[in-house]
C-alpha cells in the first residue's frame, strides 16, 4: 500500500525529519533501509555554510540526568554545501533501486530569490517534493525570522510553487503567537502541506562556568519535551487548513504517532529519536499497524479523530 501525503507517495507514513542524518545520500538511504517511508534532506541553501561552533547539540534527561533523555537542544547553524554540491547526495539515494523512497529536499534562503534559486538548482536531481524551512529558530535573517511573517511565507511559497512542478511543503515554527495565521499564509501561497513543528526556542547554561552551552548560545528544543506543543499546533492547523498537516515534534514511540495522527497529522516525521534507536521508523510503524489491527481502524480514521470527540 502507498501512503499519499500531499502528493508524495510514501512507502509508509514515517518520514526522516530535516536536519537529522540528512547530510549525505548514504545516511538517508540507510534510514530508508531502516524503515523510513521517506526522507527529508538537511536544509540546503544558496551558498556553502559551515554552521555554528560546537557544542551544537546536547541532551536533557529526567531523573537528574540519569533517566531517559526527554529533550535535546541544538543549534547547527544550517551547515550545507549549497545546492550545487548537494545534488550528488540526492542522486545517490535516487540511484539505489533497493531502497527507493521519496526524497523531500529541505531548502532555505534569506528571500524569495534565494528559495527559488535553490529549488531550481536541485530540480535536476528530481527530488519528490520540497520542504521550505521558514522555521529554523537560530539563524538570523533566515528560518523563523521569515516564518513568523505571514506575508513572506505566502510570497515565498507561491514563488517556489510557481518555479517547480512538484509538491511543496512548508515547515512551520511554533515560536509565534498564532500558528494558524502562518499555516493559512502557506495554504494561500499554494502549499501542498504544512509540516509542524520545527524546534522550540530554548537555551541551557553551564552553571560551572556561566557559559551558555551551545556554541550559538541558544538553539531549538526537540524531543519528548515538545510533543505536547507539537500536538497542539497540529490540532489547531487541522482545524483551520484544507491542506494536509504532517506532524513532527517529539515522536519517539508508536503511541506518539497515534496521538499525533489523532491531532490531525496525515503522516509524521521523526528526528531526534534516532538518538536512542536506529530502527525507530520500523518500530513506530509496526506498533501503529498493530494498534490499528487490534482496534479495527482504517488509517484514515485515526487522522483528526480527536476533533470528532465532542
Amino acid at each position, binding site marked *: 500500500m502507498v501512503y499519499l501525503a500531499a502528493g508524495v507517495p510514501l512507502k509508509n507514513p514515517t518520514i526522516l525529519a530535516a536536519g537529522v542524518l540528512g547530510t549525505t545520500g548514504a545516511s538517508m538511504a540507510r534510514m530508508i533501509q531502516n524503515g523510513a517511508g521517506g526522507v527529508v534532506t538537511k536544509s540546503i541553501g544558496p551558498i556553502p555554510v559551515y554552521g555554528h561552533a560546537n557544542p551544537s547539540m546536547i*541532551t536533557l534527561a529526567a531523573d537528574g540526568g540519569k533517566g531517559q533523555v526527554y529533550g535535546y537542544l541544538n543549534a547547527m547553524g544550517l551547515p550545507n554545501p549549497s545546492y550545487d554540491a548537494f545534488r550528488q547526495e540526492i542522486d545517490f539515494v535516487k540511484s539505489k533501486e533497493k531502497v527507493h523512497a521519496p526524497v523531500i529536499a529541505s531548502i532555505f534562503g534569506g528571500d524569495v530569490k534565494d528559495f527559488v534559486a535553490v529549488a531550481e538548482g536541485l530540480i535536476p536531481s528530481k527530488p519528490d517534493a520540497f520542504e521550505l524551512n521558514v522555521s529554523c529558530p537560530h539563524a538570523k535573517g533566515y528560518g523563523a525570522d521569515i516564518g513568523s511573517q505571514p506575508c513572506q511565507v505566502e510570497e515565498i511559497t507561491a514563488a517556489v510553487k510557481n518555479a517547480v512542478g512538484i509538491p511543496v511543503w512548508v515547515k512551520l515554527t511554533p515560536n509565534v503567537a498564532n500558528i494558524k495565521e502562518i499555516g493559512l499564509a502557506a495554504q494561500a501561497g499554494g502549499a501542498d502541506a504544512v509540516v509542524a513543528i520545527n524546534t522550540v526556542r530554548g537555551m541551557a547554561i553551564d552553571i560551572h562556568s556561566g557559559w551558555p552551552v551551545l556554541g550559538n548560545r541558544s538553539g531549538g528544543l526537540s524531543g519528548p519535551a515538545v510533543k505536547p506543543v507539537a500536538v497542539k499546533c497540529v490540532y489547531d492547523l487541522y482545524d483551520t487548513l484544507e491542506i494536509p498537516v504532517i506532524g513532527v515534534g517529539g515522536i519517539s514511540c508508536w503511541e506518539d504517532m497515534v496521538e499525533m495522527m489523532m491531532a490531525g497529522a496525515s503522516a509524521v516525521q521523526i528526528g531526534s529519536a534516532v538518538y536512542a534507536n536506529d530502527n525507530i521508523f520500523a518500530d513506530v510503524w509496526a506498533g501503529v499497524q498493530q494498534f490499528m489491527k487490534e482496534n479495527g481502524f482504517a488509517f484514515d480514521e485515526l487522522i483528526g479523530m480527536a476533533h470528532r470527540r465532542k
Partner: protein
Amino acid sequence: MSDVSNNKGNGKENNSCQCFSRGFPVNAKIIETIDETNTRKRTLLFDRSFENMSPGNFCMLWIRGVDEIPLGCSYENGVTFQTVGSATNALFELKVGDSVGLRGPFGNPFTLPKSGEKALIIAGGIGAAPLAPLAEKSKEIGADVTIILGARSEADMIFEERFSKTGNVLLTTDDGTKGRKGFVTDVLAEQDLTKFDKIYVCGPEMMMKFVMKILIEKDALSKAEFSMERYFKCGIGVCGACCMDTLGVRVCKDGPVFKAEMLVDSEFGKYHRDASGKRIPY
C-alpha cells in the same frame, strides 16, 4: 576559560540536575598537563574519570567560549592532543586548575583480544592516543602485544614508554631520527601476519589507506579494526555530519572504530566532508 565552580563532591554533582546524561557536558578540572613531546603534543588529566571507558572511545571536549572537539580517550581520566587549529591551540593554553566541559565516553570501541591471543597495534603519530590504553588493557587481559609505532620524527613520537611496557615495540620514523627510517607500512610489510589474531590501526588516513592495502595483500583484513576520524558536529549520532559513504555509517556512533572490511569500497582514503558537508578529496 574561568571555572567558577569547584568539583568538591562529584558524587553529589553527578546526582544533580545539570549532569544531564552523557549528552550534557560535565565540568572537568585539569589536574595535570604532560607534554608528550616538544612539538605541542600534550596530555591533559582531569579530576574525574570517564564512566566505563573502553579503549577506542572518544569524548567531546568543550573549551568554553571557543569550540567543542572530539578527542580519543588516552587515559581513564585524560586525553592527548596535538595543536592543529584554533580549538586545540586554545586548549594548549589551559593550565592546571582550569576546567573544560566533557561529554562521553562515546562511540564504538575496539574489540579487545582474548587472553593468549596475539595482537598487532599499528599507531601513526597522534593516532597512538587511543591505542595506548588498548595496549595496556590487552596486556592486562593476557594477550601478547606487538606495536608498530610510527611518527614523522623522534620529536613527534608519543607513548613509546607506555607501549614498551605492554609488549614488543617496533619503532619507525620518516626521517630515521628514531627507530627504523621509513613508514609503518615498511615495517608491516615484513611481518608474518598469519601469527596475529587481531590487528588495530589508528593514524593519518593516508597511512591507514596503505596499511589497508598491505592487509588486503596479506589476506589479513578480516582481523583488523581501524579507528576513523571525521568532522563531528553533534557527536551523539543525530546530525549526520560525520557519516561515511557508502554505507552511511556515523563515525561518532557506529564508529569511530570500524571493522576494516566495512571500510572497503567506502570513502575511506578517497575523500571526507568538511563542516558544510562538502566532499574534500585526499
